[in-house]
C-alpha cells in the first residue's frame, strides 16, 4: 500500500513538473493530457484506497517514507497516515481537482499561460494531498505552506494586473500571520510531547491536562489551551476566519477555476480538516473550543451579511464561502467534528459547482462579472442555469439537497451544545440561514432571471462548451445526493470511530443523533422546522425584491445607506490593516533605519568615533597620510608591540 499511497500523492507532482518545465515542448494538448492523467490516476487510486480502507476494513496505514532529519532525540519524518478521514479528504480533493482540470481546458483556452496554469493546479493537488495524508506535524506544515504558495502563484497568475499581484501578496502575508501561530503551536507540541508524530502527540495529550505554563507574568495558562489556540490561529489564516479572513475575497483576482478548487473546495478547508484531525487535543480544552466557536460564529454571520451588498459574481460566492467556513468552524467549536467534515465535503461539491457555474457565466458575458449587468440568462445557458439552481438550493440547505443535511446537523448540534458561547453562536448560525438564502437567490435571480440589463451582452451570450458543462453536471450530482446517502454513516454512524474523539461531556452530535431516524425522515422533518421557514423567507424576500418589485432595493438603499456603507467597507477590516499594519510597519522600518542605523549607530558611534579620533589627533595630523595601508601598518606595529609585551614581560 505504501507504493500506492506514494503514487497517489506524487502522480500530480510528476505531471506538474512535466507541464511546468517542458510545457512549451509538449504543447497545450499534451500538457493538459498529462496533468489530467496524473490527477485522474490519483483519483482512481483514492477510490481504490476507499475500497480498501472503508469498505474492506484494511488496517490504518501509518508509516514513514523517509527520515527528513534527526536532531537531539527528535525525529523529523515524512510519512503517510491513511484512515477513513484521510480517504474522505483524498476523494474530495482529487475529484474536485479532476473536475477543475477538465473545466480549465475550456476556461483558459485562450490564455497564453495555459501550460503554466495546468502545472500549478497539479502542483496544488500534490501539496493538498501531502497535507491531508500526513502523519506528522512537519509534513502537515509543509503541505500547509505549499498550498499557500501555489495559491500565491495562482492568485497572481495574471501577473500584469496590479490588483492581482497585490491580492496574492496580501493572501500570503495574512496566511503567514496564521502560520506564525501555527508554528508556535507545533513548537509547543514538540516541547511537551517530544515528537512530531500525530499518534505520539495524541497519546501524550491526556497527560498534559492540568499542566500549565506562564506567558504573561504570573498568570498560568493550561498548556493544552495554549497549544490548541495557537494551532487554531493557523487554521484561522488558512480557513479565512475573522479577523484573518481579509485575503479570501481579494483572492478572487485569480482565474475562476482556482477560486473553485483552492478558495472554495479544498485549501481553505485545510484548517477545518486540521482541527478535526487534532480532535484528541482540542477535546481536552474547553476554553479553546469556546474560542473556536466564537470566531466561527462571528465569521458565519457577519461575513455572510457582506455577501448581500456585493455585485461581483465571484465576490458574492467568496463571501458565501467565508460564511460557510464559519459554519464549519462553529461545528468544530461544539465538538461536532464529524458534522464539520461532513459540511466540508458537501460544501466542496456545491461550492465548486457554484464557482464553476459563475465562471461559465463569466465566459458567456465576455468577462463581465457585475451581476447588475446580467439577467435573463437562463434561456441562453440552460445547463449552467439548472446546475446553479441545484448548487444554490444545496447552499441554502433546502431539504433533500446535500447541504441541507450538513447544515441542519450543525445548527442542531449548536443548539444541543453546552460549550460556553453556544447560545450566541446558535443565533448567529440561525440568522445566517436567512442571510445565506438572501444573497444566494439575489445573485441567482439577478443573473438568470428578470429582464436582460445589458442587451448587447445578452445577445452574444451562449452556453459554454462541453468541457465546461460536463464538470458542472458531474458536480451537481453529488451536490444533490451525497448528503442523503452518507449522513447516517459519516455523521451519525461509526465512520470516524477511533479517528475523531469527542468527550462525553460535550458530545453534541450524540444529542442530535437521538432524534435521527434515517435520512429520509430527517429531510421530511426538515420541511417543518424554523430553519426551513427562515430560509424560505430569505428566498421569498429576494423574489419580491428582484423579480416582482425591483424598486424596493433602491428604496431601501436610500433609507439604509448607512448600513450598506458599513457592509461595503467590510466593517473596516481592510482599512484598519492597511493603516495600522501595512503603513505602521513601513513607518516603523523607516524610523529604525534612519534614526537607529543611520543617525545613532553610524552617525554618532561609528563615524562619530572616527571624527573624535581625528580631533584628538589634530596635533599628530602630519602622521596621517590618509592611506589605508599606513593605518593597517600602524596596527600591525602596535600588535607587534603588544605581542612582545605578552611574551617578554
Amino acid at each position, binding site marked *: 500500500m505504501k507504493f500506492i499511497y506514494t503514487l497517489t500523492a506524487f502522480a500530480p507532482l510528476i505531471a506538474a513538473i512535466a507541464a511546468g518545465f517542458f510545457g512549451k515542448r509538449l504543447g497545450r494538448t499534451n500538457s493538459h493530457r498529462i496533468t489530467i492523467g496524473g490527477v485522474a490516476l490519483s483519483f482512481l487510486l483514492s477510490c481504490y484506497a476507499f475500497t480498501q480502507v472503508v469498505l474492506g476494513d484494511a488496517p490504518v496505514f501509518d508509516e514513514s517514507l523517509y527520515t527528513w532529519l534527526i536532531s*537531539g532525540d527528535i525525529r523529523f519524518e515524512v510519512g503517510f497516515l491513511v484512515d477513513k478521514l484521510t480517504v474522505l479528504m483524498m476523494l474530495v480533493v482529487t475529484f474536485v481537482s479532476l473536475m477543475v482540470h477538465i473545466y480549465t481546458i475550456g476556461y483558459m483556452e485562450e490564455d497564453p499561460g495555459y501550460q503554466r496554469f495546468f502545472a500549478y493546479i497539479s502542483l496544488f493537488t500534490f501539496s493538498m494531498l501531502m497535507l491531508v495524508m500526513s502523519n506528522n506535524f512537519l509534513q502537515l506544515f509543509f503541505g500547509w505552506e505549499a498550498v499557500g*504558495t501555489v495559491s500565491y502563484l495562482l492568485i497572481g497568475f495574471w501577473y500584469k494586473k496590479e490588483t492581482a499581484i497585490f491580492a496574492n501578496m496580501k493572501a500570503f502575508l495574512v496566511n503567514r500571520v496564521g502560520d506564525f501561530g501555527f508554528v508556535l503551536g507545533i513548537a509547543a507540541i514538540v516541547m511537551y510531547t517530544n515528537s512530531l508524530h500525530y499518534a505520539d502527540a495524541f497519546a501524550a495529550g491526556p497527560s498534559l491536562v492540568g499542566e500549565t*505554563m506562564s506567558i504573561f507574568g504570573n498568570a498560568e495558562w493550561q498548556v493544552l489551551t495554549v497549544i490548541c489556540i495557537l494551532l487554531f490561529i493557523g487554521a484561522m489564516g488558512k480557513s479565512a476566519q475573522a479577523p484573518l479572513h481579509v485575503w479570501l475575497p481579494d483572492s478572487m483576482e485569480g482565474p475562476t477555476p482556482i477560486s473553485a478548487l483552492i478558495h472554495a473546495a479544498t485549501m481553505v478547508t485545510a484548517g477545518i480538516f486540521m482541527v478535526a484531525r487534532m480532535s484528541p487535543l482540542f477535546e481536552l480544552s474547553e476554553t479553546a473550543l469556546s474560542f473556536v466557536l466564537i470566531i466561527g460564529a462571528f465569521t458565519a454571520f457577519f461575513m455572510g451579511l457582506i455577501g448581500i451588498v456585493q455585485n461581483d459574481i465571484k465576490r458574492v460566492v467568496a463571501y458565501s464561502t467565508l460564511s460557510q467556513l464559519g459554519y464549519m468552524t462553529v461545528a468544530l467549536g461544539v465538538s461536532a467534528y464529524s458534522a464539520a467534515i461532513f459540511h466540508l465535503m458537501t460544501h466542496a461539491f456545491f461550492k465548486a459547482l457554484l464557482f464553476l457555474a459563475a465562471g461559465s457565466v463569466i465566459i458567456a458575458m465576455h468577462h463581465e462579472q457585475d451581476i447588475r449587468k446580467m439577467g435573463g440568462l437562463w434561456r441562453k445557458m440552460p445547463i449552467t442555469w439548472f446546475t446553479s439552481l441545484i448548487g444554490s438550493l444545496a447552499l441554502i440547505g433546502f431539504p433533500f439537497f446535500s447541504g441541507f443535511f450538513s447544515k441542519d446537523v450543525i445548527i442542531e448540534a449548536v443548539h444541543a451544545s453546552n460549550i460556553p458561547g453556544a447560545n450566541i453562536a446558535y443565533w448567529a448560525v440561525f440568522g445566517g440561514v436567512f442571510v445565506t438564502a438572501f444573497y444566494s437567490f439575489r445573485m441567482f435571480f439577478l443573473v438568470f432571471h428578470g429582464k436582460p440589463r445589458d442587451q448587447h451582452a445578452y445577445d452574444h451570450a451562449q452556453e459554454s462548451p462541453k468541457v465546461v458543462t460536463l464538470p458542472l453536471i458531474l458536480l451537481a450530482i453529488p451536490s444533490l445526493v451525497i448528503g442523503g446517502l452518507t449522513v447516517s454513516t459519516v455523521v451519525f454512524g461509526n465512520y470516524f470511530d477511533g479517528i475523531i474523539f469527542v468527550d462525553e461531556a460535550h458530545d453534541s452530535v450524540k444529542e442530535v443523533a437521538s432524534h435521527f431516524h434515517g435520512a429520509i425522515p430527517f429531510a421530511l422533518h426538515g420541511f417543518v422546522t424554523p430553519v426551513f421557514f427562515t430560509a424560505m423567507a430569505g428566498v421569498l424576500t429576494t423574489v419580491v425584491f428582484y423579480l416582482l418589485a425591483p424598486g424596493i432595493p433602491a428604496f431601501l438603499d436610500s433609507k439604509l445607506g448607512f448600513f450598506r456603507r458599513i457592509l461595503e467597507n467590510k466593517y473596516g477590516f481592510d482599512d484598519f490593516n492597511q493603516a495600522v499594519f501595512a503603513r505602521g*510597519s*513601513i513607518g*516603523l522600518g523607516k524610523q529604525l533605519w534612519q534614526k537607529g542605523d543611520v543617525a545613532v549607530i553610524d552617525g554618532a558611534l561609528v563615524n562619530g568615533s572616527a571624527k573624535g579620533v581625528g580631533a584628538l589627533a589634530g596635533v599628530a595630523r602630519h602622521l596621517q597620510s590618509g592611506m589605508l595601508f599606513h593605518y593597517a601598518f600602524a596596527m600591525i606595529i602596535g600588535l607587534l608591540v603588544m605581542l612582545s609585551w605578552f611574551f617578554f614581560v
Partner: protein
Amino acid sequence: MPWLSLTVWLPIIGGLIVIALGDRRSRPLALGISVLTLLVSLPLYFGFDLSTPAMQFVERANWLPGFDIEYALGVDGIAMPLVILTTLINVVVVISMWEVIKDRPALYLGAFQIMTGLMVGVFSALDAILFYIFFEATLIPMFLIIGIWGGPRRVYATIKFFLYTFLGSVFMLIALIYLYRLGGSFAIEDMHQLAIAEKPQFWIFLAFFAAFAVKIPMWPVHTWLPDAHVEAPTAGSAVLAAIMLKMGGYGFLRFSLPIVPDASSQMDTFMIVISLIAVVYIGFVALVQRDMKKLIAYSSISHMGFVTLGIFIAFGLLQKGDISGVALGLEGAIVQMISHGFISAAMFLCVGVMYDRVHSREISAYGGVINTMPLFGAFMVFFAMANAGLPGTSGFVGEFMIILAGFRANFWIAFLAAMTLVLGAAYTLWMVKRVIFGEIGNDNVAALQDVNRREFWMLGSLAAFVLLLGLWPDLVGRVMHASVENLVSHISISKY
C-alpha cells in the same frame, strides 16, 4: 592524501598562477582551479566518519616551533559542511563572473581563488595563530575586490569594512595570546581543556565577541555590511554573504562556547536579546530599503540573528536539562548558516543578473521583469520563497529548528523569532512584487533578455542545492551530530 591542505593551497597557488599568467586565458583556468578545488574537497564529505566527534583529515607540521605555533589542519562535523559550502560557492561564483568582468579579469578571478583557499583555511585551522592569520588574510582579497571593482562609494565602504572587522579581530588575537600564556599551547583543542577563572573568561568572551559579532554581523555592529554589499561587485557580495559571514558563526561555535562556556552562559541573555533585535528590528529596516542589495544585506543580518540565537539559547536549555533542545538550537544554527550560504548567494546573483543588464540596483528602476525574463522571474520567485523560509527549501530548516528550540527555552523567544515568518515574507515578496511582477515598468525592462545558458546553470545549481537541503536536510544533519554532542559536553562543564 592531504585533502585539506590541497583544498587550502590549490586555490591559493592556482589563484597566484592565474594572476601571473595574465588576462588572456584567465577564465577557463580559474574555472578549472575552482572545479578541481571542489573535487579535492569532496572526499571530506564522502570519507567522513560520522561516528566520531574527533577532528578528521588531520595534518600537522611544525611551523614556528619557537613560538609553539603549528601548521595543523583538520575538520569536524561543524567545520566540514562549511568547507564544502565554500568550495561549491566558489565554482558558482567563477561561473557568475565569466563575461561580466572586463576590467583586469585575471586579478579579479585570482583574488577569488585565493580568498577561497584562505576561507577553507579558516574553517580547518586547528592552531589558533594559523586560524587568526587565515581569518585576517581573507580581508585582503575582499578589500581589493571591493576597492578596485566596487561602486562609486567604494572607498568609504572598504575603509568601513576593513577597520570594523580588523578592529574586532585584534581583540581576538590578544585573547588568543592570553590563552597561550595560560596553557602553553596554541592548539585550539588544547584551549578547550583550559581551566579559566571567572574574570578572565569574561574578558576573553568580550574579545571573541568583538571579532565574531562584527563578522557575522550582529546588531548593533552590523552597519558595515549593507555598505560593503552595495559597493561590492556581484560576485564579491555573493562570497561575502555566503561564506565570510559564516566565519563569525563558526568562531562562536569553535572558540567562545567551548573555551569560555561560563562567560558565554552568563552573557547568554544579552546575546539572545541582540539576536532577537537583529531578527525583528532588521526585519523592519529591510522592509523599507529601496536598493535591492541593501535589502538582501539587511535580510542576511536578520537571518544571521537566527544563527546566534540558536547558539546562545543552549545555556538556558542546558540549565533545564533539555539536551534535545540544545542540539536542536546548535544544529539549527549550523543548518541555517549552510542554507543561507546558498540562498544569499543566489539572491545576490539574481540582483547581479539584472544589474548587468540595466545597471541599477534600485527597486524603482524595475517592474514587470517577468514579462521579458520569464525564466529568470521563476528563479527569483523561487529564491525569494526560500529566503522567506518556505518549507521544502533549505531556508525553512534552520529557522524551524531554532523556533522549536527557542520555544523550549522561553515562549517569548520563539514568539519574537517566529515574527520572521511574517517579516521575512513581507520584505522579500514586496520586493518581488515591485521588481518581478506587474506591467513592464520602463524601456530598460522592455529591452531585457532572459537568462543565458551560463546564468541558467549558475542559478539552477543553487536552486538544486536549496531544494535538496530543504527536502533532505539530514544530508548535513547527520555529519554534525557527533561534533555537536561533543560541543554540548564541553559547554555543560564549568571551566573555573
